[in-house]
């Protein structure tokens, strides 16, 4: 009973905050609502007794991804008012299509119910193993054995993301002063210090090398 109450609480809150993500006027509010959505999803995971996933969701999505979004939103100078104008122009068509799909889906599910296929779906996130394993252990047991292929494939995907980020953003600009450690180490008093005789009453103009 309590589980059901919490399920509906988390589910309704996550749907409402998801709607707010796309309808909030202020982009920073939108990201904050996104964080709220993640929190509610994490709550749903806890109800499914998948506490490991719940915490992972909070650490990875709330901690890293959402904060990253927040930075991007704050740093990018995106004219959201203009985006909104385009959105409102196309909103009737979008709403129409979305409405039709929604009605179709609802009608289908009302007509046929949520029948589960012949084999029956897994009812909990972590099927009880009977040996009292907590689900972190259970995940650890399959992640590097049964699912090693997916694990490695995910690794390759992250590698592509890393290469992509470097290719698209790293640039070696000409004329930028960079730290050169060999040059610094090779410096000795002879090259670093220049003794100049200053004539009395005269001035020293900076040399072309710009040392000072």
């Amino acid at each position, binding site marked *: 009973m309590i589980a059901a109450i919490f399920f509906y609480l988390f589910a309704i809150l996550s749907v409402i905050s998801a709607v707010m993500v796309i309808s909030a006027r202020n982009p920073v509010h939108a990201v904050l609502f996104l964080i709220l959505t993640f929190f509610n999803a994490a709550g749903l995971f806890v109800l499914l007794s998948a506490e490991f996933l719940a915490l992972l969701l909070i650490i990875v999505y709330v901690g890293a991804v959402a904060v990253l979004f927040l930075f991007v939103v704050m740093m990018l100078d995106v004219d959201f008012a203009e985006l909104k104008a385009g959105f409102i122009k196309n909103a009737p068509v979008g709403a129409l299509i979305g409405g039709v799909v929604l009605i179709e889906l609802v009608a289908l599910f009302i007509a046929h119910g949520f029948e589960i296929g012949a084999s029956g*779906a897994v009812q909990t996130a972590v099927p009880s193993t009977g040996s009292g394993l907590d689900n972190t252990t259970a995940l650890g047991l399959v992640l590097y054995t049964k699912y090693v292929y997916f694990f490695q494939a995910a690794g390759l995907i992250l590698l592509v993301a890393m290469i992509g980020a470097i290719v698209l953003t790293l640039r070696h600009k000409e004329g930028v002063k960079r730290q050169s450690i060999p040059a610094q180490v090779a410096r000795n008093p002879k090259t670093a210090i220049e003794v100049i005789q200053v004539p009395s009453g005269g001035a020293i103009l900076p040399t072309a090398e710009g040392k000072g």
Partner: protein
Amino acid sequence: MSTLMTYAPAFPELLLAVAALLFLMLGAFNDDNDKTGAFVGWLAIAAMIAAGALIVLQPADTKSLFNGAFVVDQFARFMKLLILGGSAVAILLSFDYLTAKGLMKFEYPILILLSTIGMMMMVSASDLISLYMGLELQSLALYVLAAMHRENVRSSESGLKYFVLGGLSSGMLLYGASLVYGFTGSTEFSVIANIAQSGTAAGNIGLIVGLVFMLVGLAFKISAVPFHMWTPDVYQGAPTPVTAFFAAAPKMAAMGLMMRALGSAFPGLEAQWQQVIWFVSIASMLLGAFAAIGQNNIKRLMAYSSIGHVGFALVGLAAGTQEGAQGVLVYLAIYLAMTLGTFACILAMQRGQDMIEDIDQLAGLAQNNLPMAFVLAMLMFSLAGIPPLAGFWAKVYVFWPAVKAGLYPLAIIGVVASVIGAYYYLRIVKIMFFDEPKEKFAPISTNLAVVMGASLFFIFAFAIPQLGGPIVSAAEAAAKSLRL
């Protein structure tokens, strides 16, 4: 050792993955210049040829690895050879262009290599998770490649557009996959297939809605109508060798994935998915035929042409028979050769440092450079489907099973669409041969000439049974293993 050998079916992918990592190190620890890039490019081609050799040497049986997540059968081998061929030739085509534009970074061939691994995983997928993993590995590398030319606004636009729409389509696919998982209780294709074949499957609405959403996601990837909107912009904006790559290997992989998913995860639901394929096929053929007429940019034209060709290939899939699947495979093989040849010609359209993309600039090419005009004309004839060139046989191989399966409207619309489409292909031939000559193009580089020659040889030689026969029989063996 014996443990290692159990993974023998996955050796081609492992080889490419290890090669990609090694080349990455090689590039990172060498000077970041054109030379390193070109060197890594040739190494990547060598790695792909080696992987292809490993595939050819594999015994012709069906093996399943990683608890059924990765399956290697004749179908996967056939598709993987096409993918490797497409990727290797795409790298070959890119050397001159990228060097001229200062884009020959070592990351370019490595991204193509990683994307190729993703494609090979796609056609070997027999689990919803491996399907998605392969697809993402492929797509993510493609987004980066499209935006590679950072100084060019169009390239950035195409990368961003591809990324956003690709992300949307992945979302659709995942939503569909989650429904399929929820209503069957498994991500494995074999288990899903058991449930799809049971009597109650047609009433299992969740499964069918999931199937439709997955088809939407996949239709995005093969750029079939009505999910084709991104194609012309991305094709036009991306650097031309990248466009050549987009039009070749990823198309093969996405088609292969679609056939694999429909054939091994959803048998017994043919009646449901055939309707979708039927509609998508007709819409793609017609849009490909009509929308290309007004195009003046040859890359945009090729984008619409590829949409049309996807429609034709889907005709064979709509038939839902083994013969139809064979037709699709033959079609893909021929389309691959034609599209790579055509892009070799497009890359040869160059004056000084400027790449020419306007179709009008081809005027009078026959008087300036007859061999190139001849190759391009033959490729256009072949794309239009004029006998005895390969493009004609490709269409025969997909339309015939459709007629046999009683899909007369589909076959008739297909023939009509290919006649309409012939107009814009023939227009290019007319411009090249009968218009006043414009300024000459720069001399053609060896790489491009080799690809043009090979493509020309292929489209003529396919009609000869000794040369076309092995491809057709390999496609037949591949279709047999697909259980369609």
